[in-house]
């Protein structure tokens, strides 16, 4: 899975959850950086990522995810194992 491909899929999930087909993500974005992306929708996004990529994050892994870049790295690491 290439980084670009992972990011593209994450972006699709964000658009779906935040109901905004025009949003653009960047790697440094964190919760709160987009309209509607609060701690509640952030949990929905994490759960959606788990479902979409067929993975399950551990609590410690969730704690370490701050940015879009962290999220993409974590997904790729989980898929690689």
């Amino acid at each position, binding site marked *: 899975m290439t980084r670009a491909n992972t990011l593209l899929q994450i972006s699709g999930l964000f658009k779906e959850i935040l109901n905004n087909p025009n949003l653009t993500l960047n790697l440094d974005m964190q*919760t709160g950086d987009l309209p509607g992306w609060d*701690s*509640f929708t*952030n*949990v*929905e996004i*994490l*759960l959606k990522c788990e479902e979409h990529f067929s993975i399950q994050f*551990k*609590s*410690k892994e*969730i*704690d370490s995810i701050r940015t879009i870049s962290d999220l993409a790295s974590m997904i790729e690491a989980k898929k690689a194992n």
Partner: protein
Amino acid sequence: MFLNAGEKHFDQNRIALNHSEGRLTYSDLFRIVTIPINDLPSVEFVGGERSIAEYLRLFACLFLGKPYCPLNPKFGPERIFAIQELISSVESSELMADLAYIIFTSGTTGTPKGVPITKKQLTNRASTFLQILRPCADDRIMQLADFSFDLSIIEMVVAWSSGASLYSIPADKILLAARYAKEYEITIWFSVPSVISMSHKLGLLKPGSLPKIKAAFFGGEALTFEAARIFQLAAPNAKIFNFYGPTEATISVAHFEIPPDMLHTDFDSRGLPSVIPIGLPHSDVKMQIINPQTMLATDGIGELCVSTEQLTSGYIGAPELNTSQFFEQDGGRWYRTGDLASWDERYGYLYLGRIDRQIKFKGYRIELQDIESALRAASKSDLVCAVPHPVLEDGTIEGLVGVVGRSSSCNENTDQILGSLTSILPSYMVPAKVLMIDEMPLSINGKVDFKAVQNWVNEQLT
């Protein structure tokens, strides 16, 4: 001072705090209390980030008996400034002599009102919880509550005075509480009831998923039968308690341990509301139901009032409320909770809702009037209304909506209104949406008809 038992008896290598930033043993905690904090007569402000550094400061306050005032990052800078000003006005008063903490709740005028609680009151209430809970050093206690919510104090005192481990769940991951609880093998669960319905909705509270939980405490909001059933299925070995109490009476005044058969589907709930009873008052509390118009005791539905040595000496910053919310009767001082209740011979007191327009949202106590006064200022319209929406079937509030009545001079730019609200109100009070309405529904006496507005919002957003 609240925690000195710990120093004497605990295995110092046990984990006192498990946090996303790291773990602290009891030895780590006791080492830091030797670090001098500011002069004892002042009130220590503790931010609401729940970082390890803030836990250490709070532990030092509890251990050394230094009064503290929790701030919440969701309070805007103006609110924080107002709170700091009020605190500085009491630092030279006699209030400081036995002060444990001051918690600020929302006030009807938008001005924060401070509730001072003494060390004696906190110690009394902590011992009530310790007697009910009987925690041991092997327990793992989950903390979701923000420091500005008084439940957090009980969680810390219960954990750290019994040598147990406190597991702090990051504030932005509260919806994942069930997953953290499972992974960390939490044995004692504390939360507001809405965590159950939100976790259930996300598919995170599966039957049998929390077998390690031996006790679960719900407070701060009404606990519905439905939510309690969902939790019991997920945590089949847990005793489930419903706690009730205003901040003004030191965290809790009554509790009800749910008998397991009460949550069976064939339980006969006739005569009961859809929420779990609040049960009987603690041994140091008297309760009565009064008719709010006549102020006389009633056998029917009325306002729940409490009298106890656990009552705050009075609000800081809202002295007018000290005469309207407290009254003397038969030699006792009573507090009007603003909650509607009735008495049931079998189960004790039953909670039936709020008399005024106070709601609980994401665990925060919010006066809808506060949002409306900000909305009025931001929209320049006199006719405004704030309503909860959406509201789940079990009563859980998932969002807030502001409604502005159109007028010739009002601001119709809803984005601009929302922007202004963000600077005036704590973030948890800012509505998700502001809607413009051509004609605000009014009651016969010319007041905004909240129910009609609620129905209109439900129609607009469904």
